[in-house]
Each structure stands twice: as structure tokens, then as C-alpha cells.
């Protein structure tokens, strides 16, 4: 690439980046402005008088907007679901990757078929099932049902299938049973895949919106996404507070993404192709 061409190339890449990043930067900048500056026409780019008043108001809000509580609830729900997914999906994937048994294809087929069932058809019946379990308006409703998703099983089954079998056979000769092989051979070999799945599960749960909007009722039980909807109603055009709330919900997700982006993107694109 010649020098001129190189400059043009990176200018284009940079311009494209701006489209994706500028709104996020605007969110952060606004969260440090005063209310009047946030809506000034023409707008200022950098806060003229940087203030954390938006954050102070966000965290000191009324009992209708216990933001810190929402943050903790989000952390609990997303971590809880990630752990649950790791356990149940890795066990199921191991069975599907390493055993031949009657009914295996039926089960695998049924799991595939559910990929074609639109999520929204499940929302109303699942609301009633969660109600019967006594989980409405609790974090259980956010942690458990979503762990039934087919994604983790697919993802890990494919990874396990590609592991070399020599180590397992060696362990078998030494008298290890299936559970020991699973825990001592398969899982340690699969750390990158497990970390990827944990991250994707965490993010999916952290970001979920429609389900928590309808199964959580009490402000103190909300997670951040439905909480942000409440903030919008409570603060109207007090944009520094709203952007502080949006930043609070984005920063953990963005940090996690920055640290693990290679794995997330490869995990997503790989499983995406599985149709």
C-alpha cells in the first residue's frame, strides 16, 4: 500500500469507527454535564463545567429508582445464569459429543428445532410457568428459564467433539469413570470455550430487556435494563441522569467485551453459522 493509499484507508476506517463510537462518547460526556448544558443549543461537546451531579442524583434517587440495587441484581442474575449454563450445558454437551445411545438424535433434533421457535411464543406460557413456581418478581425468573437456551449445548458440543480422544482413553485405561473423565480431562481442556460461553451468557442476561420488564414488578427487584425504562419515565429530559444510568449499564458490558473481544466475536460468528 502506498503512503497516500494508506492514509485514505485508515481515514475511512476511522470515519466508520466514529459512527459506532461517537454516540457512546456522547453518552459519557453528557453524563458529566449540568442539566442546562446537556440540552443547550448549539450543543457543547466537552462539558464546560464537568460535574458528577448526574451520578449523585442517579445514586441518591428515590425508592422508586434504587439504581445500586438494580446494579447488584443485574450482577447476581447474570452471574447466576452464566454459572448455571456452564454446568448444565457442559454436561449435556459431553453426553452428546462422546456417547452413543438410543434417542440421541431425537434429543439433538429437538434442541435444534427450538432454534426455529420464536422466543416471543414462549413468553406468555413461561410467565405462567414461572408464576406457578412462585418465581414472579424474583431473580429466579431471570436466572433459571434462560439457561434452557440451546446455544451453550451447541457451542460446547462442537468444541468437545474436536478434542483429541487420546487423553480420555488413557484415563479410561487407568480406570477413570465417565464423570472423572469429564471433570479431570474434558473440562480442563475446554477452558477457553467455557470462558467464552460464560461471557456470552453473562452479557445476554445482563442486557435482557423484554422478559424482566414483564416478570419483575417491584422497583427493588429490577435489573438495570427495565430500571433504565423506569428512569426514563422518572427523569424525563434530565439527560445527565439518564446518560449516567445508561453508562452504568454499559460500562461493565463494554469492559468485559474489551477484555474478551477476540473470544466473543469468534464464539458468536462460529455459532451463528450453525444456523
Amino acid at each position, binding site marked *: *500500500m502506498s503512503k497516500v493509499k494508506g492514509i485514505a484507508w485508515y481515514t*475511512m*476506517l476511522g470515519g*466508520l469507527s466514529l459512527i*459506532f463510537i461517537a*454516540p*457512546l462518547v*456522547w453518552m459519557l460526556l453528557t453524563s458529566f454535564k449540568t442539566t442546562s448544558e446537556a440540552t443547550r*443549543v*448549539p*450543543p457543547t461537546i466537552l462539558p464546560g463545567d464537568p460535574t458528577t451531579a448526574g451520578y449523585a442524583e442517579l445514586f441518591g434517587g428515590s425508592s422508586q429508582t434504587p439504581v445500586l440495587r438494580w446494579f447488584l441484581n443485574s450482577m447476581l442474575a447474570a452471574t447466576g445464569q452464566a454459572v448455571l449454563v456452564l454446568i*448444565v450445558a457442559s454436561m*449435556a454437551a459431553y*453426553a452428546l459429543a462422546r*456417547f*452413543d*445411545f438410543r434417542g440421541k438424535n431425537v434429543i439433538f433434533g429437538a434442541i435444534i428445532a427450538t432454534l426455529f*421457535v*420464536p422466543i*416471543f*411464543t*414462549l*413468553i*406468555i*406460557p413461561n*410467565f*405462567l*410457568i414461572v408464576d406457578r413456581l412462585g418465581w414472579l418478581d424474583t431473580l429466579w425468573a431471570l436466572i*433459571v*428459564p434462560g439457561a*434452557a437456551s*440451546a446455544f451453550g*449445548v451447541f457451542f460446547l458440543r462442537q468444541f468437545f*467433539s474436536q478434542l483429541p*480422544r487420546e487423553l480420555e482413553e488413557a484415563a479410561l485405561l487407568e480406570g477413570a469413570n*465417565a464423570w472423572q473423565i469429564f471433570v479431570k480431562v474434558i473440562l480442563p481442556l475446554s477452558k477457553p470455550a467455557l470462558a467464552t460461553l460464560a461471557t456470552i451468557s453473562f452479557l445476554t442476561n445482563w*442486557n435482557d430487556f*423484554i422478559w424482566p*420488564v*414483564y416478570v419483575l414488578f417491584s422497583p427493588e427487584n429490577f435489573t*438495570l435494563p*427495565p430500571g*433504565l*425504562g423506569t*428512569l426514563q419515565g422518572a427523569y424525563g429530559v434530565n439527560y445527565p441522569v*439518564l*446518560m449516567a*444510568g445508561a453508562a452504568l449499564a*454499559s460500562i461493565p*458490558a*463494554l469492559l468485559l*467485551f*474489551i477484555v474478551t473481544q477476540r473470544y*466473543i*466475536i469468534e464464539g*458468536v460468528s*462460529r455459532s*451463528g*453459522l450453525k*444456523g
Partner: protein
Amino acid sequence: MVEQTVRPATRPVPPVTPAPAAPRRRGPGAAPWLFLAPYLVLFTTFTLVPAVYGLWISLHEWDYLLPGKPFVGVDNYGALLDSGSAVYESFWQSMQATGIFTVFTVPLLVALPLGVALILNRAFPGRTFFRAVYFAPYVLSVAVVGLLWRFVLDPNLGVVNAGLGAIGLPGDTPWTTGLPWAWISLVGVTVWWTLGFNAVIYLAGLQDIPRELYEAASIDGGGKWAAFRHVTLPGLRPVLLFIVINTVLASANMFGQAYLITQGAPGQETRTAIMYIAEEGLRNYRMGSAAAMSYVLTLALLIISLIVFRLFREKDPS
């Protein structure tokens, strides 16, 4: 050992386990079932049962708050087809809103990410960095996206109108409250949010197209455009099929953007099918009717998916 590519280049379903070289164990007995049990309990309770239970609900006048839930047969479906019923107009208006959104979103989310993927498929320093930047909005919740863009697009206080005004263009466009602007906003925001997802899927597909095919095409004397038409596009066929189907499904699921940015405004024009179904079923608790609606929408999606599959098959030269 034959190298097993992770991503199947020719069909969307992955090849099953590699060579059956390992000696088969004696009958596995109960072991696989014990490993499967925890997942199957969840899968049955929260996926299989609800898929059937939903149909059952749709055959009843199922008011969550009332003790009696009388069986009404297909009346809930009938009401959706009867122009005199209470739900007819609202339901079809919401279906129309979802339809409009899908028709404008899908072509953009099929074409633009391919362009981005072609850019990212070239070798240059910083490629991984830019790929991450373009993907970044996708890791945000729709709640963040909605709140942020409602502010940016605020007709009176938002930076978009302020910016347009500052360079002498009309600065009073009702981005969130008027038509067709609300649609432009919702489609644009969705493209911004999910473009990176489709782009990385294309990129994975592009990287599976064998180099030799491009070399052969250049020996045949074709230019870049010929290579794109005769090598890239055919090579991407399974990926393209996945992207189209997946984007149609995602668009039909649209909820949060309209819920937070336009709140259905103006009037109910941007209230999507999912918004209406959720409101009927989970706010007004008319679950029988709402469940019936969700199956009608599913049927519509099934028909569209089948049409897309056929189109892709007919275009197959082989």
C-alpha cells in the same frame, strides 16, 4: 489427521463428530442420561412445555386475573380475522408496523455488513481493533441503545437536530414523533446496533472461501467485480441464507427500540406486533388472545422463512 474446520463452508449444519476412529465403549448405560438430565429438566420445563402450553392457552379465554378460563376453540384466532372484533384493527396495525420495520431493516442489514466484512477481510495492521470497534454497540442492552438514541434524536433537545440546524438544514425534524421520521430513526438505530454482528458472521464466511478460487478467477482474467460475483457471492451462499433468515427473525422480534424511543408514536403507528402482544398478554392479561396472536406471527415468519429457503435453492446453479 484431516483438518476439521470449525466453520462449515458449504452448509449451515455442522458435520457430526470427526472420524469414528476411537473404539466404541461398551453400552453406555445410564451415564449419558445422567449427564443430560439437568439440561433436559430445564429444556422441558422452559422450552418444550411452553411451546405446547401456549397453543393450549390460545384455545381459551384465558384471563390471568379471573378464576374461570373457558375453552373457546379457535375463537381467538377467528377474532383476529374478523374485521368487526375488538382486536382486529390493533393487531393488524401492529403486524403492519413490524412488516414495515422488517422490509426496511433487512436489506440494509444484509448489504451494509457485507461491505464492512469485505473491508475487514483485507490484511492490514489494526484489523482486530477495528473489528471490535464496529462490533461494540452489539454488546449493549437495547435499554441503553433506546435511552441513548432517544436523547440524541430528541426533536427539541437532541444533538442531531442541533447539528443539522447549525449547518443550515432544517433543525426541527420530528425524529421520534412523526412519520416517516420515526421509522427512519428505528431502522437507523437498529442498523447501528446490530451491523457488527452480521459483519463478523460474513467475515467468518469470507475467511472460509478457499484462496485458490480467487487465484483461479484472476487467471481467468476477471476483475475484482467478476471475482466478487463468481467467487465471493456463491461462496457466501449458506452464510447469506443464515443472515437473511436471522435478520428477518430479529426484526420481527423488535420490541425495545420502539418501546423506548418512539413508544409507538405517533398514535400507534410504530407499535410493533411484539409490543402489542406483550401489552395484551402481560399488561392487560388477555393471554388467550395474545397467545393466538403470537402463533399467527410465528406462522407468518414460517412462511417467509420457507420462501427465503426456496429462493436460495432456486438460485443454486448446481
